[in-house]
């Protein structure tokens, strides 16, 4: 039976997995969203400590998801890995940089003799929290707006400008998606803190933050979505594989793939519902609706970028160098091998969920932290 599985099925299958990992990553970046408020949210050191410990018990999940996202993208669409990372060098290096400084900040910030001082490590958390999500948003926006590169006959990438990715910041739509992701993870970060702590004052402050961030998120989200739906897209000819610009491509993608449209709308509804019950009804469970909504929305956006004959990593410099899930993927054999590996993902997600619940049984409060000997 397995031999009957076609190459194009596997390419689509792997695009779905990548989309799912990307979606989970954006959801898990609530950790970054929270970090970006480290200097503005807490009223005092005690609240800051609570907030940092709430986020710090989850940072590894986000980090590991990022690593896995990278690895899975490499294994399934190596031409993307080679072209984008090797071409848009500065954007990716900046993203990586912000994650290196995060990885040690939690563990080291409150340890004695930490050489750089707590303030520095807190600043590291802030930089990662603000810059990481923003730049990841900008990088993903180029999936829709395109980059300037060409591939030679050996499929080696040549970037067509000396900015190596920084030029993406000149396109308003890229910046808008960067801000969408940033404000979304800030909202999710607030709602996660609201869900996890036992401290009235910190909760009230988080709700006030949430209102501001939710408005900013909605403004940029509407701008990005409307401009995306009205923009030209990079369409791939089914037969020749040639890429050409097509009017309202992404809008039609949604209409022509109703399942994706439903996922998208359900996702947006989920995020809005989470925001509404938190802000207007004082619910502490908003994060679960907003989190699920985030996953669905991002997932559907990735599908819009790659499915229905669309180039997912387009080149505006040389249209036919654009990457599609057909020309950028691994071989049939590798995709099939990796498909077997992917069957274990539900099991991995199950034990993550199990472990997550096991250590989150108690809400975090001052008393909880004083009884804990691994404190950030």
């Amino acid at each position: 039976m397995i031999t009957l599985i076609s190459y194009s099925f596997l390419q689509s299958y792997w695009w779905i997995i990548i989309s799912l990992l990307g979606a989970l990553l954006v959801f898990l970046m609530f950790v970054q969203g929270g970090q970006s408020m480290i200097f503005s949210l807490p009223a005092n050191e005690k609240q800051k400590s609570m907030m940092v410990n709430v986020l710090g018990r989850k940072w590894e999940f986000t980090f590991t998801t990022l690593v896995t996202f990278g690895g899975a993208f490499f294994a399934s669409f190596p031409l993307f890995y080679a072209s984008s990372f090797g071409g848009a060098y500065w954007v990716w290096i900046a993203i990586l940089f912000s994650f290196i400084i995060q990885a040690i900040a939690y563990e080291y910030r409150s340890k004695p003799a930490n050489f750089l001082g707590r303030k520095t490590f807190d600043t590291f958390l802030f930089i990662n929290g603000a810059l990481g999500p923003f730049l990841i948003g900008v990088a993903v926006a180029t999936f829709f707006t395109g980059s300037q590169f060409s591939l030679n006959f050996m499929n080696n990438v040549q970037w067509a400008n000396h900015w190596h990715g920084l030029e993406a910041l000149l396109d308003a739509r890229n910046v808008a998606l960067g801000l969408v992701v940033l404000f979304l993870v800030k909202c999710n970060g607030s709602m996660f803190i609201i869900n996890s702590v036992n401290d009235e004052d910190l909760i009230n402050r988080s709700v006030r933050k949430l209102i501001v961030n939710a408005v900013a998120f909605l403004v940029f989200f509407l701008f990005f979505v409307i401009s995306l739906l009205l923009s030209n897209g990079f369409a791939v000819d089914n037969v020749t594989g040639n890429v050409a610009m097509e009017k309202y491509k992404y809008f039609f993608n949604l209409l022509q793939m109703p399942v994706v449209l439903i996922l998208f709308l359900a996702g947006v509804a989920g995020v809005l519902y989470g925001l509404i019950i938190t802000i207007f009804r004082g619910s502490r469970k908003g994060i679960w609706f907003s989190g699920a909504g985030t996953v669905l929305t991002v997932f559907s956006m990735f599908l819009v970028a790659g499915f229905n004959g669309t180039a997912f990593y387009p080149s505006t410099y040389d249209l036919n160098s654009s990457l599609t899930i057909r020309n950028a993927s691994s071989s049939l054999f590798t995709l099939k091998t990796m498909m077997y590996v992917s069957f274990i993902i539900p099991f991995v997600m199950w034990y993550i969920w199990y472990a997550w619940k096991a250590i989150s049984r108690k809400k975090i409060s001052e008393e909880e932290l004083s009884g804990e000997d691994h404190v950030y």
Partner: protein
Amino acid sequence: MIENVDLSLVDWSRAQFALTAMYHWIFVPLTLGLSFIIAIMETVYFRTGKEEWKRMTRFWMTLFGINFAIGMATGIILEFEFGTNWSNYSWFVGDIFGAPLAIEGILAFFLESTFVAVMFFGWNKVSRKFHLASTWLVAIGASLSALWILVANAWMQNPVGMTFNPETARNEMTDFWAVLFNPVAIDTFSHTVTSGFLLASVFVLGVSAWFLLKKREEWLAKKSILVSGIFGLASSLIVAFTGDNSARTIAEHQPLKFAAFEAHYNGKSNAGLVAAGILKDSDQKLGEKTKKDFILKIEIPGFLSIMTGGNKDAYVPGIEDLLYGNAEETKILSVVERMERGKYAREVLMDYKRARMTNDEEQGNIIKAMFNAKDFIDNYFRYFGYGFLNKPEDAIPNVSIAFYTFHLMVMLGFFFILVCSLALFFSYRGIITKHKWFLWILIISVPLVYIASQSGWVLTEMGRQPWIIQDMMPVSAAVSQIGAGSVITTFILFAVLFTALLFAEVSIMAKQIKTGPKH
């Protein structure tokens, strides 16, 4: 395409990767070994219920946590640097190389990082059994992570299980099991992981010795010496055994690397193994490279022949035989000959690309068939990378670095067998506190074990130059086309940041040790 490569770009890209890898490897071996040592200690606590064992477990766990975070920080960079700095490589072999990296994330890294959270925060929240299981899963996860990364690295040393597709201009995987059970992968994994176990054992021995010298925490220190002494001795013996295996595998698959780390220029039968020696520049040259000579050396007669060929009469080819050929004594194809074949293979590929561009279907199909023909694959395409070399001497790695790192690593390896044995012996007789000199040796061993461990990787990676993939692709063809200035900038940024973080790590670690266990 590759002919006008900017050499400073290649060198800086290599420097950046080496910097990241070496920093990463400061932290990873301790994670690999300490996780098992902690798991063993917690198991004793679980079995006996004695609070002292729990206290001990938690003390070492604190040090583990400090080290673990920085290992993650440097690890993520390595993964992405394949894309950012070696993009041509990433395409040329991504179809094979990406898979183990992805599997590492899915199967191993999640295991490690999920249960590390339970290990740190679960003491008061989950059952003792669940906690113990989590600690073991962290240890297993760490080693599994290493497995997949080393499978990927071993593939670069000995590429197997793939075929070249001229259409996409890349290698494609055809046999996953060949990649996983690559003989080099098996050797590298067993050698590297156990060397991590040894490093962590020596670390625990050193820290415990410090407590004993300070007359603090005697019970904890003595029990820690017992646990890490046993674990360390077992590991050091496996390290020696697998190292020997590994050397044999290298002699077979990377003969020039092997010749370089013995500074063995002229092949001979009854070749001796240089146990130790000091090199100097000789007045002879190979191309533009100066040959090395020995100022002094201690040699075990005939042993190199026995090691590689099984008997004293076996001929061990030297660097010159491998470069220029020696048809009488060795059947190995010379680098000169390989270069011609590699160039031919490259020309065939260019012809194919030309045929495709001019839409010459017939010619294209004829050439494409060649890439599936056994004769062309085994006798020409196999040497594809040699087509990029300008002169045969380009294939020689840096002999001095290879020689010294190899011998340093081996000598220290034997030294640690002795150290662990003595630690166990004194500990068993209950007289370890009486031998202060030995406690000092244990402390001095800590920096030494790091030197040995780093030497191993420098040898592995520098020894295979100029290749990024043995015989298939030199580093110069693999590099991303970005300005050297950009790479220099990021190199400096990484160097400053990693160094600052290392200082922070060492400082925090030292403070935690001085403070000692809590409660």
